[in-house]
């Protein structure tokens, strides 16, 4: 029994805690471009000071939060009806749409983001279609704007929203809705006062599963976003690769983690609570 418990702990220590300790140690170091690895361990706070004095990092952080928040809301608005429809379907009809939700995972994430580039480019499939219909003779370019980043995030993370929502809705006791109807509630009122509050654990879980990785997202803003799209994941990449400033990059990573601990703790608590409820 003890060995069974020790296994995940050993895993966490070897693959999370130790690497994180290394990153933490490097974040207190100084950039040494003429050394390999390019770090001098100096135990200084300069990197963290720079993060809070240079407004680039704060601006990138805020902009990441904003983009992650708006795309999470968009994912919820799109994912909720999907999950709801699947949950209300007859059980034998649920597996096909559920499989379709998971199907994109069979293709590499990177290739799917590249496919969006082909769709959204100036002479991409979408614009060609719009011109062909004649309705929009001069459609603007979506690729390279913040819109494209939002589309990319919503597309890539939609399954992470649909699945927990479906899991909650599927367990819902639909006879409660009949009771609400008997008591005179119209469908909208019944949804708002019965279904929505009962599905809240799924909403919270889905939102956090989308929000947390979206904040640190690098590939989507790099490929779909424009030059003006400022996100913390891109800043981190720039510090590590372009500037080869490992200590500053580590400091950005440490701050990113610390700032995400809040939402992660929320997710953890919510999961624990829903486990308790089902016991």
């Amino acid at each position, binding site marked *: 029994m003890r060995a069974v418990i020790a296994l995940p702990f050993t895993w966490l220590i070897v693959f999370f805690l130790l690497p994180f300790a290394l990153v933490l140690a490097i974040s207190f170091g100084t950039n040494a471009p003429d050394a*390999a690895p390019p770090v001098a361990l100096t135990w200084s706070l300069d990197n963290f000071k720079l993060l809070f004095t240079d407004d*680039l990092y704060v601006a990138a952080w805020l902009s990441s939060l904003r983009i992650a928040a708006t795309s999470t809301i968009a994912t919820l608005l799109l994912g909720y009806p999907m999950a709801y429809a699947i949950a209300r379907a007859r059980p034998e009809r649920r597996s096909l749409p559920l499989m379709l939700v998971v199907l994109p995972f069979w293709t590499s994430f990177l290739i799917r983001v590249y496919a969006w580039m082909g769709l959204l480019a100036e002479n991409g499939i979408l614009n060609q279609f719009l011109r062909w219909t004649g309705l929009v003779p001069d459609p603007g370019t979506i690729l390279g704007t913040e819109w494209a980043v939002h589309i990319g995030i919503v597309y890539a993370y939609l399954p992470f929203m649909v699945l927990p929502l479906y899991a909650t809705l599927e367990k819902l006791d639909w006879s409660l809705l009949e009771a609400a109807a008997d008591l005179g509630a119209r469908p909208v009122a019944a949804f708002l006062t019965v279904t929505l509050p009962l599905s809240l654990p799924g909403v919270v879980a889905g939102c956090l599963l989308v929000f947390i990785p979206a904040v640190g997202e690098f590939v989507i803003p790099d490929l779909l976003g424009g030059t003006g799209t400022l996100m913390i994941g891109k800043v981190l990449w720039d510090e590590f690769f372009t*500037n080869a400033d490992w200590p500053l990059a580590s400091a950005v990573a440490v701050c990113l983690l610390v700032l995400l601990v809040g939402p992660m703790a929320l997710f953890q608590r919510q999961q624990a609570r829903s486990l308790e409820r089902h016991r």
Partner: protein
Amino acid sequence: MRLGFLACLLACLAGPAFAQGQVNVYNWSDYIAEDQLKVFTKDTGIKVNYTTYDSNEILDAKLKTGRSGYDVVVPTASPFFVRQLAANLYLTLDRAKLKNWGNLDPGIMAQLAKYDPGNAHAIPWMWGTVGIGYNVAEVRRRMPNAPVDSLAMIFDPAVVSRFVDCGVMVLDSPTDVLPAALKYLGLDPDSKSSEDLKKAAEVLKAVRPYIRKFHSSEYINALAGGDICLAFGFSGDILQARDRAAKAVEKREIAYAIPSQGAMLWIDVAAIPKDAPHPEAAYRFLDFMLDPKVAAASSTLTGYANGNAAATALLPKAIAENPWIYPPPDIRAKLYTVTAANAEQVRERTRLWTTIKTGR
């Protein structure tokens, strides 16, 4: 049983590290004529483990982490190779083991010596320029007398603003673009002074609203596919765009111009990391790269000039006589190179670059 498995695992892990019969080459994608690799293996019996990358930064991070396992790598001379050389990552070449050394182009070697004193650690592979790529018809339609061979095409707001509707892309690389902006201002492109760099940044901020994106490779497809009509990028990439556009269903004529003010000359070099597991095989491979036949075949594939003087005679005319690839002497005399910056200058430069890009 379990011991047997472990022993096998260890043997498998240790096997490649001790065998001299192979060489681990890490090169840019599409950067060597791959059929020649088979010839190398046939001639020497050395197996080539050939892997590719598409950014200097990835190579840099791998080398600096240590124990990369590569025997031959091909970084760009400045700023990457210089920085790696300063970190003492490369083997000093023993020229006795490179019988083809004499084929190298003395002019390119002299430029390279600025980064690698005495040419002690690296051989030049491909070289090219940074210049202006454009869609001939779209540019002509918007501005019949466009100064296509001048940096004004990119850095003069009055000119570049004419092309905002058909799209402009610029390399996402402060080390390639800021020197050009300095050159446009008539300043020393190699200047590291804060004052000069701020002036260059002002030039870029003035044209920033007309630039759709800063990116270091997307412009190839964008130019070929008609998504943009003007790009500031690498010569070979723009030649690739030209070839793709010529093959496309909807044909487009793409042209390249080396700025008349002078253009940046970049050189990619081949070198052996100090911790290379198979140094002897690495020497054989470098010597193979110095073979004029191999260099010529690779230039034919990539559309870049090589640093091998003996290879020029073997090149097809379309390449050897193409002024975009092998510029005539008067233009070649105006090409410039830049030296590496120190850590503080690098941070200042990239910070300035972020300010320009995000328009803040």
